[in-house]
């Protein structure tokens, strides 16, 4: 059969994964003069061909929901490739009683091709939450350690926003925000009435040209991928400068299988399955950066067993796969009669929210720990499949009346989504499934997931707030959520918010953490993890910006250590 093909070449660093963290690492490391092999499980991305920017639903025979309607569950055919809850031949399992959903994207750039572009800094308190309320653990680093790197990332990728001085949502290096949509003005006014903070959002979308990238053209379709790279994706913003150095070797279609440990106790490379030929190949490197996404990196560490690390590489603490969290999510919507009177107008704007509600109850006692923010949208968006699902839930009959009702209600809905902090718990983790392998022969992950009373009370609070805002706006709140069952108060299934982090957390104590504050493994000095896995807490801020700031900082540290000969 096939034999392992060893490339004679020795790279300085092998980076696994080309998303937010891997792309950042590739850029910083190559610009710092190191040679980098970047291995990516998916194919290259070709924005002009692959992104469906400015297409109408009727230009696709399936109108956006794909063959048999099956793309609908993966956010539709319009989504930039290749995100999916299920990848053929690459399963994962959930333990009995758990239902965890894992959204993966095998392509250069990973999930940054289609992410929500919400770019929020963690707040100073988020690094010290345990000190405040005794739950979980503090980070080994503080906001001040990361703040200069938030500055660097924001200045480089371009983030719009405004300086607001809200303690739960620190200000950053912002481009000007886009003008508010009608829905923003209505929600803002309602929030003012009931003393809820509502401010311009912070999204990684250019409202001015940055580094030659064109400013946004306001088609409202960032999720489809942006052909002009006017929003941030790793594939279009991090990889090109790395390529330009001449120091980057990109290996696509490469499914990492194991980090190889040398006799000296250091990693000496990565073995991967070349998907095209189904052969095992190997990259030799002086250091390894795992940035395959939090759970995929945990899987890789757990699958990298050796006499020295029988429970998985860099896992003497046993913390790999543990401390898994996702954001708490609960959604709702209402009808705003005022919007019926709006004349037709272009409401597209940027692809995402122009305003949002940061966590505003940080100064009072709540019946749950930590907090959440609220994203909202609605109004006269481009009609799509499912446009009138909610209307048709109530509206009956057929014919001219139905058509009139559709005209009348189009664009009058406002949807809200709460995104909050989950506290790590011992019932929520991932491990290697003892009996299942994927089609590449690699053992897969098995997930355990459980919301605690903390998160459920938070979801309850979200629902009450959504209702209060919609009613303060003179609207009718439509969402009804159960008090119990599997999803009390509409709390999303674990993984559904796609903010899964924490599975190789950093910490100052090697007995309870995998990495130090520079994302470097306590056990193996030339192994780093630079995705969502190092995060100690998962505050109500979407993790991507923090993943990039941590990766930038860790990469500079790696460069420094390499120069000193410490790796």
């Amino acid at each position, binding site marked *: 059969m096939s034999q392992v093909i060893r490339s004679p070449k020795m790279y300085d660093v092998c980076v696994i994964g080309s998303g937010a963290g891997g792309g950042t690492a590739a850029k910083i490391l190559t610009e710092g003069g190191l040679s980098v092999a970047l291995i990516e499980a998916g194919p290259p991305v070709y924005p*002009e061909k692959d992104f469906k920017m*400015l*297409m109408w639903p009727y230009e696709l025979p399936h109108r956006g929901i794909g063959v048999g309607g099956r793309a609908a569950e993966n956010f539709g055919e319009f989504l930039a490739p290749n995100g999916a809850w299920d990848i053929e031949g690459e399963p994962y399992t959930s333990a009995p009683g758990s239902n965890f959903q894992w959204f993966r994207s095998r392509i250069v750039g990973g999930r940054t091709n289609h992410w929500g572009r919400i770019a929020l800094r963690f707040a100073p308190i988020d690094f010290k939450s345990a000190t405040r309320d005794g739950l979980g653990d503090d980070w080994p680093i503080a906001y001040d350690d990361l703040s200069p790197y938030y500055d660097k990332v924001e200045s480089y990728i371009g983030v719009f926003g405004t300086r607001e001085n809200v303690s739960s949502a620190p200000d950053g290096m912002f481009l000007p925000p886009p003008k508010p949509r009608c829905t923003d003005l209505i929600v803002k006014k309602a929030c003012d009435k009931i003393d809820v903070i509502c401010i311009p959002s912070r999204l990684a979308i250019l409202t001015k040209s940055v580094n030659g990238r064109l400013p946004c*053209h306001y088609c409202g379709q960032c999720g489809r991928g942006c*052909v002009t790279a006017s929003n941030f994706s790793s594939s279009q913003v991090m990889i090109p400068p790395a390529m330009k150095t001449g120091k980057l070797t990109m290996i696509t279609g490469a499914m990492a299988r194991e980090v190889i440990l040398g006799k000296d106790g250091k990693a000496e490379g990565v073995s991967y399955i070349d998907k095209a030929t189904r052969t095992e190949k190997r990259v030799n490197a002086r250091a390894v950066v795992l940035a395959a996404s939090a759970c995929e990196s945990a899987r890789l560490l757990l699958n990298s067993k050796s006499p020295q690390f029988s429970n998985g590489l860099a896992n003497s603490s046993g913390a790999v796969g543990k401390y898994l969290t996702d954001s708490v999510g609960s959604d709702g919507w209402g009808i705003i009669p005022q919007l019926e009177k709006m004349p037709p107008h272009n409401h597209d704007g940027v692809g995402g929210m122009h305003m949002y509600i940061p966590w505003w109850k940080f100064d009072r006692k709540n019946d749950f720990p930590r907090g959440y923010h609220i994203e909202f949208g609605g109004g006269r968006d481009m009609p799509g499949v499912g446009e009138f*699902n909610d209307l048709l839930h109530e509206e009956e009959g057929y014919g*001219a009346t139905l058509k009139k009702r559709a005209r009348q209600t189009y664009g009058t809905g406002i949807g809200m989504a709460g995104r909050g902090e989950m506290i790590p718990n011992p019932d929520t983790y991932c491990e290697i499934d003892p009996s299942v392998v994927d089609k590449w022969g690699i053992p897969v992950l098995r997930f355990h997931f459980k919301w605690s009373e903390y998160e459920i009370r938070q979801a309850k609070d979200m629902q009450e707030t959504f209702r209060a805002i919609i009613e303060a706006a003179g609207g009718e709140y439509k969402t009804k959520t159960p008090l119990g069952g599997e999803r009390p108060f509409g709390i999303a299934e674990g993984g559904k918010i796609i903010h899964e982090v924490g599975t190789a957390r950093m910490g100052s104590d090697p007995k309870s953490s995998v990495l130090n504050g520079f994302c470097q493994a306590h056990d193996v000095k030339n192994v780093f993890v630079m995705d969502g896995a190092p995060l100690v807490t998962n505050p109500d801020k979407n993790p991507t910006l923090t993943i990039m700031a941590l990766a930038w900082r860790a990469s500079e540290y790696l460069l420094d250590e390499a120069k000193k000969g410490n790796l």
Partner: protein
Amino acid sequence: MTENSVTRRDILRTLAVGAAGGSVLQVIPAKAAEYAHELVHNEKAASPAGKYVPKYFSAHQYEMLLMLCDTIIPKDDKSGGAVEAGAPEFIDLLTSENEDWQLAFGGGLQWLDNFCSDRYSNVFLDCTPEQRKEVLDLIAFRKNAKQDPSLSQGVAFFALLRRRTCDGFYTSKIGIEDLQYIGNTALREFPGCPPLPEA
């Protein structure tokens, strides 16, 4: 598809020129996008109406589907109806690819014929317009199923068909224009909200 990507390249070129040259155009690629829609439209027009060969439904079923879609969203003084907008083709394509849809729509249409045969001794299409209206007025409202549980399968079928007809119609050019959606175009500045009417 080739035409579309050419069009999108045109759009990009226009965008790039617009940004680099500081063009004063407010709406840049609307014309280019319009061109793509024309292409799709012309392609459809090239095959004469009625020539569509259903991928899943039998000729009889498809005729029922046409009639039902047309009843759910008819032409009115503002816009064309669901049939003109291609909703039946959309439903047929998706049904041909999905076993759940096959059961729901294939079985639902058969239920409708069975129901009409029991009640009027004719299949749906052979009923008088008054009889058809009577049946639809029964299955188009959920409350009827509460009073008469024997209608519940028909009510479920009609609710699903109504949903899918709306999907097909409101993702078509006709349906999107009917709603007066304005956008899917490139702007140099986002204008924001026009003056809000009083609440």
